[in-house]
């Protein structure tokens, strides 16, 4: 037993090092933060949703089916201990004068669902009588404004469906009461069950209106891109970072790095060689994944049950856009490699180097989850700043930013990534000129200075 305990203690000491424990703690904190973020998104999705309506119904009497239905919906909110005035917004008919007016009104009110009662809503229903074969229903139109492409972006479709169902049930109940003494056939029952008809719907996306398209259709068309692109980018970054950091650990362990550093070659050349070589390898990996994705998306977009494709939504990337995507990928890979080279400088051997990949993995996972479950615009300012500061967020968001013409984020991301990569390369070169690369430890401040270049002639 003593022998066993002896061995167990040795294993634990080797496995539970301060750096490995720190890595796990960081992961725990990250997952807690992500859990909280995703939880709040789920809470938002399960909360009662707000919506707007325009009542064009010419019947404003107490028998108006539209007014009764609106009263029914108000009661629906009251029954949930909610103030209907905070969730239901009535708009005048003038907001329908133009798409711009509609979009502005919805944006100003902060709603993404607008329900429109037709002018003949009540009269159509009132004209129905049992036994009629040709019937007119109460017509409703729905307009959505989609500002988000995350998992919960299709929620507004559910809101509209729920409201239309409530309106239907309200009218249905009234009809049942009105004709309770009359004999009914199957057609009558069918009508009474569905006296309201959703005759048209459209969705504002990227400022443009798409008829007969719901947010759910859009989410379905985009889900491949929103779900898989961040995963691919995360994989590429972790993979190439891991390869580089392990290679640095190997070079240190085999002392091939020491040999390289004593050759008549400038340190900047050695650093550049490592970075550029690894970045090209990373870019090739990324490009191969992207090509696969391109065909995958292409295939998927034609296979959606609704027939809504990214192309039909105008969400396509031009050749220039793809070039920009690759530039973002390359810069993000450079940033990752820069971070890895800095971390690798402190690793004494291959084993230590492998644990140092954890911070890069965490930095790649955070924006991946965020872009999968929500969108940058939906985040609070502090989280937006944090996500923007993580260089790997930008290639994950670039395709959407290009599709949605989000110029500020594209230029901001490009400038930030370039600056970040430059700073990483500068720090790496400084490290390669310092003792840390070989000693693997930060010198305490003493009269000879810290991180000073070894040789003035470099």
């Amino acid at each position, binding site marked *: 037993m003593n022998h066993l305990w002896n061995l167990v203690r040795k294993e634990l000491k080797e496995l539970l090092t301060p750096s490995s424990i720190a890595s796990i703690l960081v992961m725990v904190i990250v997952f807690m933060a992500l859990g909280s973020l995703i939880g709040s998104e789920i809470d938002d999705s399960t909360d009662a949703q707000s919506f707007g309506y325009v009542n064009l119904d010419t019947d404003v009497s107490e028998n108006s089916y539209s007014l009764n239905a609106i009263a029914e919906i108000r009661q629906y909110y009251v029954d949930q201990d909610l103030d209907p005035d905070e969730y239901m917004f009535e708009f005048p008919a003038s907001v329908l004068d133009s798409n711009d007016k509609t979009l502005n009104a919805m944006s100003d009110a902060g709603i993404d669902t607008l329900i429109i009662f037709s002018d003949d809503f009540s009269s159509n229903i009132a004209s129905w009588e049992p036994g009629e074969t040709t019937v007119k229903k109460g017509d409703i139109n729905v307009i959505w404004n989609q500002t988000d492409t995350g998992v919960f972006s299709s929620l507004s479709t559910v809101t509209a469906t729920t409201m239309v169902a409530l309106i239907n049930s309200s009218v249905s109940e009234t009809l049942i009461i009105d004709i309770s003494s009359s004999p009914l056939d199957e057609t009558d029952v069918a009508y009474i069950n569905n006296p309201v008809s959703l005759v048209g719907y459209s969705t504002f996306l990227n400022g443009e209106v798409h008829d007969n398209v719901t947010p759910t259709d859009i989410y379905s068309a985009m889900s491949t891109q929103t779900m898989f692109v961040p995963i691919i980018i995360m994989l590429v970054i972790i993979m190439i970072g891991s390869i580089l950091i392990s290679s640095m650990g190997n070079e240190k*362990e*085999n*002392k*091939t790095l*020491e*040999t390289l*550093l*004593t*050759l*008549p*070659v*400038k340190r900047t050349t050695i650093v550049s060689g490592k970075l550029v070589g690894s970045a090209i390898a990373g870019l090739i990996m990324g490009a191969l994944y992207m090509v696969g994705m391109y065909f995958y998306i292409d295939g998927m977009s034609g296979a959606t049950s609704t027939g809504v494709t990214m192309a039909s939504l105008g969400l396509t990337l031009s050749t220039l856009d793809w070039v920009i995507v690759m530039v973002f990928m390359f810069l993000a890979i450079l940033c990752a490699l820069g971070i890895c080279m800095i971390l690798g400088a402190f690793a004494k051997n291959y084993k230590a180097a492998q644990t140092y990949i954890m911070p890069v993995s965490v930095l790649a996972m955070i924006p991946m989850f965020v872009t999968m479950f929500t969108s940058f615009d939906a985040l609070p300012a502090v989280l937006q700043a944090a996500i923007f500061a993580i260089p790997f967020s930008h290639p994950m968001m670039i395709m959407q930013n290009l599709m949605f013409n989000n110029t500020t984020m594209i230029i901001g991301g490009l400038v930030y990534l370039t600056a970040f990569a430059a700073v990483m390369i500068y720090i790496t070169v400084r490290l390669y000129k*310092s*003792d840390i690369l*070989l*000693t693997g*430890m930060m*010198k*305490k401040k*003493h009269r*000879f200075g810290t991180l*000073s*270049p*070894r*040789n*003035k*002639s*470099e």
Partner: protein
Amino acid sequence: MDALVVKDLHKIYGEREAVKGVNFTVKEGEIFGLIGPNGAGKTTCLRIISTLLSISSGEIKVYGKDVKTEADDVRKIISYLPEDAGAYKDLTGRKYLQFMANFFTEGEENKAMVAKGIEIADLGDRIDSKVGTYSKGMMRRLLIARAIMPNPRLAILDEVTSGLDVVNAYEIREIIRNIAKHGVSILISSHNMFEVEILCDHVAMINEGRVVLEGTPKELKDQYGVNNLEEVFVKAVGQ
């Protein structure tokens, strides 16, 4: 001209002073041995001379070139072989020598340098095998060939026969003697006193970051009236 002059060299890591005012001089064409126990500061001295570590204070000149201010020039005339060094395992011995030769020469000179490396390594057909398949002795021969083929003026070899069997160690020492005959100055470090005694023209004994003795092996043995450097060292440190 002196090949290497080390003056009052200090190296401080944080609170710890690893090298405490080391002085020694290597003459041109000489095999100079830096000897001492593990942790004495030998490797730190060699790494500083090789421009790998910074100088905390003091001065080092290699053929008149200042290590601190003319590091690029120093690297052109030295060659450093770290203790237990390896090579890129996926390359063959020939490709490894080619890779290294590309940093020094081009064209015909490059071919001649690789040919020289292959000759020094003397690995036969195995020169075209992957480095990962080499034994420790073969690896050392390859690395010595790498270090010598660019014709350095000063070769710095750290624990060059450490971990080798008798035959391999003997062969490596022969290679070193042969190199010295061609005018290359050699600085080797070792904790193997026997090896240093039979190989070196001049030795400096280092202990706890200080040079405690310096001279030819014969001078040192005569000074202490003993038969080998091991006894010299024990007596010198004991005093």
